[in-house]
């Protein structure tokens, strides 16, 4: 780094220093650094500023302008993803089951060129037995089901009948037995045939249909897409852990939109970043303008305890130390009752309690005290 810039190493943020370094010709650097430093000092936030409320306003206010529509129809063949206000609510609630889980899988170098992209994608997709079956023939007399297989499709993914048998054994091994027949199809028989009837056979057929065969569980749809100069795979349904285990996946860039899953697999810092990215994506898509700092603060409040806490009465709000602050949000009676049992003490160090008591609030101009010598 330039000598002049080193002087500011402790005072200016790294991003700004890098920007100066990058853009500024060496001759000007001293002057520029001094001016940037001055502007930076001018732009700094005041102590005591109620940044939380400003952030809440900055996200809450554009919320009224967002559309409720849940579709996404940019481009020709994008996935259907929850967007707009419902998505924001979903993220900030910290929901464990989101409406449309989705992944963006980046591939490592030789695979992302587009060759065989479709086959790679097909390997990721969760396949069930029903997809490979052309026809079910139910033999009532022998109480067995003959399955005619879609061999072309199996060839594409590389599934052999043996694998299907294995899959059936694994899932329904206790109820049925299966083997290959002469025509290349499968024959499935019920175990303990004597006490079973036709009904059981039909039930077994339905169960067979959804037997998991191969691919990655949870990934129900795949869509290879060209992004700039590489191919990526977009999926509906997500299973981050399994996907990252695959050797052709670029694990540094692959993400999903399920915050909880990210937290589980990659940790809380990644989850925080995911919240920021996801909220920002929605706001951007609505052509609204919200500074990233506000979203960051929201993400930080949600993640500061080490796990994701939604902005709900069970999440962030329940963490507050003040009884009155919790009571003024939701379920006041519950909070007061519980407080009385424990003998909780409210030290009135946040905002609402002081509003209730008509006292100055400890943010902004309410924060500093004034000491003065009284002349007697």
């Amino acid at each position, binding site marked *: 780094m330039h000598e002049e810039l080193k002087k500011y190493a402790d005072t200016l*943020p790294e991003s*700004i220093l890098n920007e100066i370094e990058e*853009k500024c*010709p060496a001759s*000007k650097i001293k002057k520029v650094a001094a001016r940037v430093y001055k502007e930076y000092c*001018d732009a*700094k*936030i*005041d*102590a005591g*500023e*109620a*940044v*939380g*409320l400003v*952030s*809440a*306003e900055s*996200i*809450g*206010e*554009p*919320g*009224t302008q967002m559309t*409720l529509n849940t579709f996404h*129809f940019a481009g020709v*063949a994008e996935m259907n993803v929850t967007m707009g*206000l419902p998505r924001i609510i979903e993220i*900030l609630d910290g929901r464990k089951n989101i409406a449309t889980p989705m992944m963006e899988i980046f591939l490592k170098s030789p695979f992302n060129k587009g060759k065989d992209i479709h086959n790679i994608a097909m390997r990721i997709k969760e396949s069930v037995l029903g997809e490979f079956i052309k026809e079910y023939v139910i033999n009532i007399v022998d109480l067995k089901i003959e399955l005619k297989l879609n061999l072309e499709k199996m060839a594409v993914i590389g599934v052999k009948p043996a694998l299907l048998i294995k899959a059936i054994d694994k899932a329904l091994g206790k109820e049925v037995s299966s083997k290959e027949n002469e025509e290349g199809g499968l024959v499935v028989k019920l175990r303990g045939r004597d006490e079973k009837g036709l009904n059981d056979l039909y039930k077994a057929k339905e169960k067979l249909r959804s037997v998991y065969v191969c691919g990655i569980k949870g990934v129900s*749809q795949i869509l290879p897409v060209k992004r700039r100069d590489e191919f990526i795979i977009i999926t*509906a349904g997500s299973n981050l852990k399994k996907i990252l285990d695959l050797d052709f996946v670029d694990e540094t860039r692959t993400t999903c939109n399920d915050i909880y899953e990210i937290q589980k697999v990659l940790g809380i810092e990644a989850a925080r970043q995911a919240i920021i990215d996801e909220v920002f994506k929605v706001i951007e898509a609505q052509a609204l*303008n919200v*500074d990233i*700092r*506000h979203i*960051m*603060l929201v993400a*930080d*409040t949600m993640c500061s305890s080490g796990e994701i806490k939604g*902005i709900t009465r069970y999440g*962030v*709000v329940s963490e*507050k130390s*003040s009884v009155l*602050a919790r009571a*003024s949000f939701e379920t006041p*009676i519950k909070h007061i*009752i519980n407080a009385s*049992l*424990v*003998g*909780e*003490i409210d030290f009135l*160090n*946040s*905002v609402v309690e002081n*509003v209730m008591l008509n*006292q100055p609030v400890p*943010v*902004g101009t309410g924060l500093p005290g004034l000491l003065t010598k009284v002349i007697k």
Partner: protein
Amino acid sequence: MAKKKKTEENQTKELEKKEETIKEVPEEESKEVHDAEQPLEEIETSKEEPSEAEEKKEEMTRERVEAMQHFVFKQVSSIVFGMLSPKMIKKMASAKIVTPELYDKEGYPVDGGLMDVRLGVIDPGLRCKTCGSKLKECIGHFGYIELARSVVHIKFINVIHDLLRSTCRECSRILIPEDKIKTICRQLDVVEQEEGIEARRSMVKKVISDLKTINKCPHCKAKQQKISLEKPSTFMENEKRLSPIDVRARLEKIPDNDCLVFGINPKASRPEWMVLTILPIPPVTVRPSITLESGERSEDDLTHKLGDIVRINQRLFENINAGAPEIIIEDLWDLLQYHVTTFFDNNIAQLPPARHRSGQPLKTITDRIKSKEGRIRHNLAGKRTNFCARTVISPDPMLKINEVGVPLTVAMKLTVPETVNEWNAAYLKKFVEKGPAVYPGSNYIIRPDGKKKKITDETKEAALEELQPGYKIERHLMDGDIAIFNRQPSLHRMSMMCHRVKVLPYRTLRLNPVVCAPYNADFDGDEMNLHIPQTEEARAEAEILMEVQTQIVSPRYGLSVIGCLHDGISGNYILTKFLEMTREKAIDFLCSAGVIDFSRLPNKKVLNGREIFSSVLPEDFNFKGKSKSGEPVVIENGRLIEGVMDKVSLGGEGAGLLLRSLHKKYGASKTVEILHKILCLGIEALLRNGLSALISDTDLPAEANDKIQDILNSAEEEVSNVIKKFNAGELQSYPGKTLKETLELKILEILNRSRTKCGVVVKDFANKNAHSIIMAESGAVGSYLNVSQISACAGQQVLRGKRIEKGYKGRTLSCFKPGDLSPAAHGFVRNGFKHGLKPGEFFFHAILGRDSLMDTALRTPKSGYLYRRLANAMQDLRTEYDESVRDANGRIIQFKYGEDGIDVARSESGKIDVQKIIDES
């Protein structure tokens, strides 16, 4: 006997009395308190024994004296929550209630009744027997009733159940061996310290849930029975009923140390207090009765409920004393339990709610506290104010941007207090002389002891004589006074800004249309509120933190929210693009717009609009930007050399880059000043030039119409080709989509593309001098999309990302064949609005209109709730002096606000523009 504390109306006041530790103020200050209060007390005592003549006088003064001024010298530092012990209830009570009657024959409250005068007064003229003060001065006092048989408190029923299940039925010890109790307690403390009180609560729950199944006491080895709760409030031990008396006996025996494991602090609340033997009666001030027009009294719901309790209680007493059979006593006991339960909560699932005779359920304590209209959110977290006004708003571009026009009638009602001193005495006397009826007069005079007197024509003389330093005059609102202006919903801080008052005739509040954007106001009947700060501190804060100029830059994105709109933009666009005038005319022009400094007008015969515009810019201002259409805008040394002014330079709400850089260089007040001048210029330009939207503005030449028809025809043909392919099964499906979906996507894409193409044609052929086009081009109002929808083609109506599919089976409307996939059958509107829509097209368009109405109606409450949650969760976050962001507990949320400590409102869209600095230096 346990009674949840906070049930009273005057919650805070009661809290102050009973539940807080009040921090003592330093000695000097508390002396001052005494000094200040002394004269007050003297006045009070001197009135104790008034002679008859004086009594009359007192009555007169009482009429005039409206409110006493209170000064808060004490600060509440903490509030302790806990349960009331029976002892405490008795101690704080000032009366024992024994009779359900309310009034005697004369209508005077009965002694020992629910409206006993010892509980406070609600009738004018009566004095409280406990504290001797009158109505409004006495805050009320609690009473109590002794319950004939104890009754469980419904709100603690689950806690009691847990306690019974996890303690021994013989020795009442918790079912945990002695040595383990201590370790568990320690663990709990650690959890509370590390993760907060909620974590402790959930751990307690876990500990307790394991105890249910233990059936041998580890202390006395007694065998345990299964205890179940029969809802709502009966406990059964192996099919045998446990009466509240039995329950209480067991709870009493639980030692203090064992309570701790249950998360009960024995200092704050003993378990047996959860079974009531004595019930506190809230003061009458909490449940005032209202006198109807007919002279009949209508009692509060709580009084009704308490009446029921007292009545049943008396009957139970009598029956017990008379030795009635056990069944009757049990029945009455259950009834008492029911009444006490519904007194606390009238919405218990298994109980029928107690009702009025009319059938409407009673509002009891729980209903009073909870929900939006309850005490907490309605009365404690939300306040009402005096000194405010509300009316319809209307625009006035001639007002300064930080002014608000206040109707004269309002200005004569709202007042500002001014303290009399040596130097302003003469000035303030004038206001008193004029009285309340002549503007600028005054309405009240406040004596140093806090007595407030109304100024009338009769009292004017006396007031004038009395006036001396230390007195306060509440004078009428005048030009230049500070006011806070607000429009609901107050979604961001710009919804409440400080304006300067400008007193005007007529009856609406007026504001400069430029500030409509931050308030999100329009003039279709919107109303707004005006508040007048009453103290110097409040005024200073309002002026420094909230005045309009301080709010130009939004903290949401760091760009200006306030900027020219509509006429301001189109006017300046016309001025800088088309106008040219002689020097004389230019000077006339500037004069009318309120600009009187012509020194910067070049000395030429004919001046163009850019030169005229330049004369409002500061001399050393440089700016490089782009106009809406992408052409460069260059300002050098305060001269607009190239380009036109439009929305990108002058607009608000994230546009207005010119304004933003003015703001950065010259500060807020100067920007507001220049913005006002620019706005006036724009309006003046329009006044002289005229701007009217004509229907012919959107006329297209025949050539353009042909082109549009070609585009639409070819699009329809393309669609029918795709459909043919689909029917023939030749269509290649997109990955992950079915054939049908692929078809729909393709059609949608073709049709959308065709409308875009039409838009381009319209843009090419539109008459650039037509006024409607000028409006769109300058960004003032409307867009080319609107123009092309009017003149060319309204386009495909997209409902939830798809073409319209609703309607009959296989078709949208009965005029189409089932299975028709053509554009027209699924919501493609081929005609423009001007040409007129076909019935089918009109219908499809109306579907979309309805859908968007529904969308708004559903969105508002959802986003409102999200906002409330966000605000509640984050309201106590603040930056500290070390730039970290912390919450009220001091937990660190961010180490440096926004990772770089930059305030968005002070930056340019959140960044420091390094490139610009490099370029400039």
